[in-house]
């Protein structure tokens, strides 16, 4: 698998750490085990070396013992039994002793004793021989020890204060046997000792029970009459209790220029001498050091192997992690197709699977989101298109009456007689009304879409609504030759009365418009907890297919014979929106050519609220006796139009184009009862602030109306907050009247 890491980047600290830990662990284990092993191996090797030295010492002791024993045997051979004492006896003894001298060069002197321990014959190499001297040797310790066939040993004597000699006495087993006692020159033992091989440069020497050196490979050394009891190895030998196991060999520090040696000792029983075997430490320990060196080399090799192994192992361990890392990076870079393949059968494989699942989910949600975005875009495009269509339709529908208006006005200029003029004015009024209606309807729809209309539910009786609707439409129905019947009802509903009236008005108006003959019935019925208000007509009907579309904006069913009374196609759209706002179900039943029923369901109420809601009197004529109104609008035409209307109604109007004018008027003392102010004044003035200024100057919260084409919620809230009324342009005269009434009354 290719990685996206550049070759320069290090492998990562995880690898290093794993390697380090593994290497440390293995090395530590090796070191510890190696050290422990080496320690024990050293102990064992040392014990072996010690044992070897002890063995050498024992061997040396045995050889020296053999030397003495061989002399003993020779002495025994010279024993003469019998205590006859005669010349034959003497001669026999003499011969034996002479023979002894010849066969045993170590013997310096020998004497043949009789059974009582008296000397019979004496021979000597240096001193004079003696025959039948009768010297009593019975108190000689060697002689005393040599009873009943045993061998007795005397102490060491140094002849000429130099040559060590030992006295050995042997006796016969028979009671007649005398004894033979001899002085042994220990110079002759130096060959024996010299011949003891202790490695390459080791040596052995013998000290007596007191620690005097008595035998040495270099025979001259033993002649020096030195006492070695101060040497640690000799001390160890001397202090060893008789019969106990030999102690550990002593390591002796280097003496003079000599090397450090290791010394073992053994006792030569029954003489009580000690043989000391010394060997240079380096020589004795050579095999041990070699084995330690071997172990060290193995240890080093082991550690090297451990490091190599840990490198390999760490790489193996971090490989899946690196795979995960790389996979994550690639997915993070946006390659959502990337998947991590780990087949290790452990938690890492599970992790990789989770990873892949996550990546898959990411990709899916990505796709989902894209799809959603696409859908939404589609929707928005649709909505946009719908808006475009709406605008197109609206502007088309607007163009007609406006165009007509222009034509009529143009005609009016040329009209000479009154009747023509009156006729044209009626046309202009009609066209203007049509434009106004259209704009009103558009505004309504716009307001409803913007959520600018708030439902104010109340409980109210339905009959007054019905009455007003009848009143509004009876003339139009009569004109078209239709019967308009309103069934009286005593039912009460709970919903927004104004909006419900609007719905019903639109439905009835539609019914009237689309019925050629017959009639329209408006009735209310109880259906459980609902009141079902139905509008029956015998009109052209709506086919099932068209029923889906009737509530759309500008949708008009073709085939209506009366083009003029066609309307705008917005009525049902408004009904639909209002019904949705009030959450009232609206249904259609229709048979094309026979008629249709539109039904609205409202919640039933049982008690009407006290008093009628303040429904503005739409058509109540009134004159406002000199109600002073301050009108502020920068558009002179608007000023003229609105001002004219107000004057016609009997108001006293003062107008101004800007804030400054208005404030001047107030400063001059005028106190209007109502301020009507356009929202967008020139010079970036806002109507709301102008009104505020005027109110402030007048020190009175004069009721004020803001005029604006802006149907936004923000403006509504702002005006509501400031305690101002808001009327939308184009101005609805009836509404203005209502407001004036309201002000006049208060």
């Amino acid at each position: 698998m290719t990685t996206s890491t550049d070759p320069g980047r290090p492998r990562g600290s995880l690898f290093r750490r794993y390697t380090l830990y593994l290497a440390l662990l293995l090395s530590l284990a090796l070191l510890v085990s190696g050290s422990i092993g080496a320690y024990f191996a050293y102990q064992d090797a040392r014990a072996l070396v010690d044992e070897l030295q002890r063995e050498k010492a024992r061997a040396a002791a045995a050889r020296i013992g053999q030397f003495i024993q061989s002399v003993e045997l020779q002495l025994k051979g010279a024993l003469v039994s019998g205590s006859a004492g005669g010349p034959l006896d003497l001669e026999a003894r003499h011969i034996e002793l002479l023979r002894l001298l010849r066969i045993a060069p170590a013997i310096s002197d020998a004497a043949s004793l009789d059974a009582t321990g008296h000397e019979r014959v004496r021979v000597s190499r240096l001193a004079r021989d003696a025959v039948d001297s009768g010297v009593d040797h019975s108190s000689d310790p060697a002689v005393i020890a040599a009873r009943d066939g045993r061998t007795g040993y005397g102490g060491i004597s140094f002849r000429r204060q130099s040559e060590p000699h030992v006295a050995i006495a042997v006796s016969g087993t028979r009671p007649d046997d005398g004894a033979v006692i001899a002085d042994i020159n220990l110079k002759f033992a130096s060959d024996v000792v010299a011949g003891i091989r202790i490695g390459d440069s080791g040596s052995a020497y013998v000290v007596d029970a007191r620690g005097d050196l008595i035998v040495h490979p270099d025979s001259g050394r033993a002649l020096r009459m030195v006492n070695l009891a101060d040497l640690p190895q000799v001390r160890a030998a001397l202090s060893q209790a008789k019969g106990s196991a030999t102690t550990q060999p002593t390591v002796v520090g280097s003496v003079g220029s000599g090397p450090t040696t290791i010394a073992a000792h053994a006792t030569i029983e029954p003489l009580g001498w000690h043989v000391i075997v010394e060997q240079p430490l380096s020589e004795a320990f050579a095999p041990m050091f070699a084995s330690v060196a071997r172990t060290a080399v193995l240890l080093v090799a082991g550690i090297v192997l451990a490091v190599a192994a840990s490198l390999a192992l760490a790489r193996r361990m971090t490989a899946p992690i690196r795979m995960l890392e790389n996979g994550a990076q690639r997915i993070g870079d946006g390659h959502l197709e990337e998947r991590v393949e780990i087949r290790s059968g452990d938690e890492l494989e599970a992790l990789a699977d989770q990873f892949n699942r996550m990546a898959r989910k990411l990709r899916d949600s990505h796709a989902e989101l894209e799809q959603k975005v696409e859908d939404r875009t589609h929707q928005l495009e649709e909505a946009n298109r719908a808006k475009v269509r709406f605008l197109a339709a609206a502007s088309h529908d607007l163009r007609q009456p406006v165009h007509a208006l222009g034509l009529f006005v143009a005609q009016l200029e040329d009209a000479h007689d009154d009747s023509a003029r009156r006729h044209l004015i009626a046309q202009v009024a009609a066209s203007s009304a049509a434009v106004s209606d259209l704009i009103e309807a558009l505004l309504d729809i716009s307001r409803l879409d913007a959520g600018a209309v708030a439902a104010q539910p109340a409980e109210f009786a339905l009959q007054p609504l019905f009455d007003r609707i009848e009143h509004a439409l009876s003339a139009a129905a009569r004109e078209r030759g239709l019967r308009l019947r309103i069934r009286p009802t005593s039912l009460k509903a709970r919903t927004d009365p104004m909006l419900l009236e609007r719905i019903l008005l639109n439905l009835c108006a539609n019914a009237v418009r689309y019925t050629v003959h017959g009639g329209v019935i408006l009735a209310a019925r109880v259906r459980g907890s609902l009141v079902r208000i139905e509008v029956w007509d015998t009109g052209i009907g709506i086919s099932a297919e068209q029923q889906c579309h009737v509530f759309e904006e500008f949708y008009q069913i073709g085939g209506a014979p009366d083009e003029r009374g066609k309307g705008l196609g917005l009525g049902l759209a408004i009904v639909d929106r209002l019904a949705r706002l009030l959450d009232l179900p609206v249904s259609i039943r229709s048979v094309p050519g026979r008629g249709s029923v539109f039904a609205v369901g409202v919640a039933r109420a049982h008690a009407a609220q006290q008093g009628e809601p303040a429904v503005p009197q739409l058509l109540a004529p009134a004159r406002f006796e000199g109600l002073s109104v301050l009108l502020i609008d920068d558009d002179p035409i608007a000023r003229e139009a609105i001002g004219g209307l107000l004057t016609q109604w009997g108001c006293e109007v003062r107008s101004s184009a800007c804030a400054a004018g208005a404030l001047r008027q107030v400063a001059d003392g005028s106190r209007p009862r109502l301020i009507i102010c356009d929202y967008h004044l020139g010079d970036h003035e806002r109507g709301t602030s102008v009104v505020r200024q005027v109110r402030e100057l007048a020190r009175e919260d004069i009721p004020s109306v803001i005029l604006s084409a802006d149907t936004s919620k923000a403006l509504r809230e702002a005006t509501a907050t400031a305690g101002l009324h808001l009327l939308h342009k184009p101005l609805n005269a009836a509404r203005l009247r209502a407001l004036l009434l309201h002000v006049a009354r208060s």
Partner: protein
Amino acid sequence: MTHRRMFLAAAAAGAILDGTAAIAQPPQYRVGWIAPGTMAEGLPILDALRDGLRGLGYVESRNLIIDARWGDHSGPRVESLAADLVAAAPQVIVALGPTAMAVRRATTTLPVVFAFSGDPVQAGLVANFAQPGGNLTGISFLALELVGKRIELLKAAMPGARRIAIVASAQHPGDQAERHASEAAAKAMGLEIEYFEAAGSAQLDRALEAIQKSRCDAVVMFPIQSIISNSARIAAWSIRNRIPAVSGWGQFAEEGNLMSYGAAMRESFQRIATFVDRILKGAKPAELPVELPLHIELVINLEAARRLGLAVPRSVILRADKVIE
């Protein structure tokens, strides 16, 4: 090859050889030797030393130089020789017999190995046997003890002997001790002795003549160089005059005299060589104990005994280390 090239090659080779020879020159050891007698008398002993040294790796043509001085039986000459030898500054001096005293007077620092017949402690050469304590050490040939033993053995071989002649060296410094030892030993055995002095060969002849004239039955000769080197002559005299002669070196009996009892010469001088070796290797004489000969041998010449008309008893023959038929 051109002549020029050959010349160069030879010169180079020569230079190399010279160099290697110079490099290969082993360290030269210088051993001094001073003996009281003549070269003729003393050479066999010197040879024994040479053999001993060769065995230890010292070869005269290679790494050893022996500076030998012969006293020619002249006391004053020995003194001057000793001084000369010391002045020559060898690494060690081997001094035979009485020359040891002269050498000791000549130097107190140069190591000296003596082959002394008597008691070196009594002669003032060393403090004691075990630790000599000076610049002298060596081997003592136990002349004082052995003279008694020789008399004893002679008595055993010749039971009828009554008067024994003792021949010793006049220049022998310890001669008073030897005389006393001889007298004491003889007295203990119930014998009389008559003392004769003979240093060199000339004196020896006179001594022999004097012994002839005396009533001595046998003669015991101290094993001095002049005696040993004249062994054959003495043997002839001995047989002619039927006077058995006993001395201390095996050579004496081998050359026709009755008996010899004393140290083995070659063995002893090999031991001297060991001393020299140790000193050359750095040992101090003060720390090398004075040694006695390892083996004392009895050599009996039965042929001579027959000629002398002696029947040597079995007991004597039994203890002989060497019997010459």
